[in-house]
């Protein structure tokens, strides 16, 4: 029996090509998954940092503790996400590297969560507008085909439902409170409304992960979000803003001026003392 060298070479080439194709597909899938995880985690990281800023600065001891507890919950969730992202990246980047050593343009949180703690009404309005979305998002993420993401979601959902109760309660209390508290809460809702639509925008990674049955189709959450938020605002004797002009950009890494200052504080330790651990 003679061996046709050419034939062997062709079949080897074809195999190499097939392997290369598969590995590109795996890399693409991993890259999308990596970016998808970051998209979820960055929201919680940045909001967690904002709430953490209130440590020692809350209006009363009880609310101070509540805000920092919410921050702690969010950071805990972030750790689970970044530990997973680090595994997916598989290039030695640790959870700390991912959390602390990216540049501003590489953070893909929504603009809403980076808005400053202007006053307590503003802080609670921001929390409420995010919590309602966050809770609905996690309910869907529990059904993800990715078992790690679904486990993190079922863990987080219990914590986030307490956040949502807390922030909803404050929106109602301040909205349906004194003339001054009502004015402040209304101003906060009006100012932050412009950042709500972005919650329902899809990135490329989002679309790819939805197609895989891993990601949540956020466009489907939009109607019930606005319905729920509007009902609560009415209950709080607040006006539902009518503005149709919405800001976006956070999910593409284009941020408001506030994020840079936050990152300076967030990253200070890690950049000054490299390789510190959480």
């Amino acid at each position, binding site marked *: 029996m003679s061996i046709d060298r050419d034939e062997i070479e062709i079949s080897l080439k074809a195999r190499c090509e097939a392997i290369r194709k598969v590995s590109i597909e795996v890399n693409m899938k991993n890259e999308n998954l990596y970016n998808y995880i970051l998209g979820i985690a960055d929201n919680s990281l940045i909001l967690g940092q904002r709430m953490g800023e209130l440590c020692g600065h809350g209006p009363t001891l009880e609310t101070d503790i509540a805000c920092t507890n919410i921050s702690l*919950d969010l950071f805990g969730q972030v750790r689970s996400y970044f530990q997973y992202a680090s595994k997916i990246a598989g290039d030695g980047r640790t959870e700390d590297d991912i959390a602390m050593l990216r540049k501003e343009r590489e953070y893909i949180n929504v603009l809403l969560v980076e808005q400053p703690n202007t006053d307590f009404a503003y802080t609670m309005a921001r929390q409420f507008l995010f919590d309602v979305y966050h809770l609905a998002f996690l309910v869907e993420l529990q059904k993800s085909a990715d078992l790690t993401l679904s486990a993190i979601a079922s863990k987080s959902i*219990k914590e986030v439902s307490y956040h949502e109760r807390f922030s909803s309660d404050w929106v109602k209390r301040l909205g349906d409170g004194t003339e001054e508290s009502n004015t402040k809460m209304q101003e906060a809702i009006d100012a932050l409304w412009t950042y709500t639509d972005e919650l329902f925008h899809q990135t490329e990674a989002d679309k790819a992960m939805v197609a895989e049955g891993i990601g949540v189709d956020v466009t489907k959450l939009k109607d019930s979000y606005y319905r729920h938020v509007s009902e609560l605002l009415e209950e709080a004797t607040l006006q539902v803003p009518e503005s149709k002009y919405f800001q976006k950009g956070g999910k593409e890494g284009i941020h408001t001026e506030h994020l840079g200052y936050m990152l300076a504080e967030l990253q200070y330790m890690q950049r000054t003392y490299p390789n510190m651990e959480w």
Partner: protein
Amino acid sequence: MTTTEQDIDKKLIPILEGVSDPEIPVLSIMDMGVVRSAVIKDNTVKVQITPTYSGCPAMDVIGDDIKAALKEAEYNSEIELILHPAWTTDWITPRGRKALEEYGIAAPLDAEADKDVLLNGKRIVKCTNCGSQNTRLVSQFGSTACKAQFQCEDCQEPFDYFKCLK
């Protein structure tokens, strides 16, 4: 789910019962329901633990404490943190609930009652000092992420309530 579904080697139970929650020292991690499995393989114990809350800073300490306790009993050990199935307050044992109450922390009610208490201001959480149900929610968040703050309107005692997680 009940605690009987945990796969824990009988020999290890007394050792693990000796490890307590660093934030609630009267409560062993076994009564807390944090240990999901513990099996011996070639003199190495593989322990799976699950966090009560995601950000619970006690988890790292609990892992270290388990290792130390097993080391003393001459076992090597590996600790794995698992998230699924998620911990629920139902996994706290009856003995654990009793220990909580005696320590001054009101044990978690069921999910519906918990909602009534935290959202609608219903007065059903029993004061850990005098047993009165005339208690008021001070804050939904307490000294740690897992607790809420209450005050008794009869004896004025401030106390923590362990929030229901389900």
